[in-house]
């Protein structure tokens, strides 16, 4: 699965995108976020509890309870600030 990072999430994790193979027990965004926190200090800071992490699954905005089964692309980012 492809994971993308934007804005200050990208800066904190130090990656714009990566391909990952997830453990089978991770089935939704909430589980993926918990898993991310153990990947190092940058990830821990980016995904700290109480943070403002938003996400999209296959380029659609998604809540933390959204399934990632079969997803090709998940993106994490701060609340959007365009316009």
């Amino acid at each position, binding site marked *: 699965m492809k994971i993308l990072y934007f804005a200050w999430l990208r800066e904190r994790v130090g990656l714009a995108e990566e391909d990952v193979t997830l453990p089978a027990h991770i089935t939704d965004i909430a589980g993926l976020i918990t898993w991310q926190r153990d990947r190092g200090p940058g990830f821990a800071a980016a995904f700290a509890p109480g943070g403002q992490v938003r996400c999209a699954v296959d380029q659609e905005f998604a809540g933390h309870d959204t399934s990632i089964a079969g997803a090709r692309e998940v993106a994490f980012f701060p609340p*959007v600030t365009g316009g």
Partner: protein
Amino acid sequence: MSSTIMRRILVQTADFDTGAQLACLEARPGVGGIASFVGTVRGQTGGKTLTALTLEHYPGMTERALTGIAQQAEARWPLLGCIIIHRVGTLPPGARIVLAAAASAHRQAALEATGFLIDWLKTNAPFWKREDFTDHTTNWVEARAADHEAASRW
């Protein structure tokens, strides 16, 4: 009548010509009113002076999100055309960032749809702004609660 609706969605680094864009809407048959909003880079925020504003976006998803917002506007108002142009990359103070515009037979639909387009774009399209200041600090702009209130009016 959907075949007669003009819809233009552009995400680009280049500047746009507001007058030329609006002229495309003015030229549509049946149009009586064209409303628009242009957002520009302010030179000061929070008492600090900006050197640049950088706009990051999510290629692929951005175009989908903007198209969805335009479709919503077309479903809610009897539009004859709408335009969303959003620049990305690093822009100096005073630069144009975004154009939202809508055309209809009558003014109220054009004005309301334009307000809807820009309010929804602020909360429902994957763009992020970073401010670079003259004191060499940088700041990722935080989302404003007022923007969510504005979008939820519609």
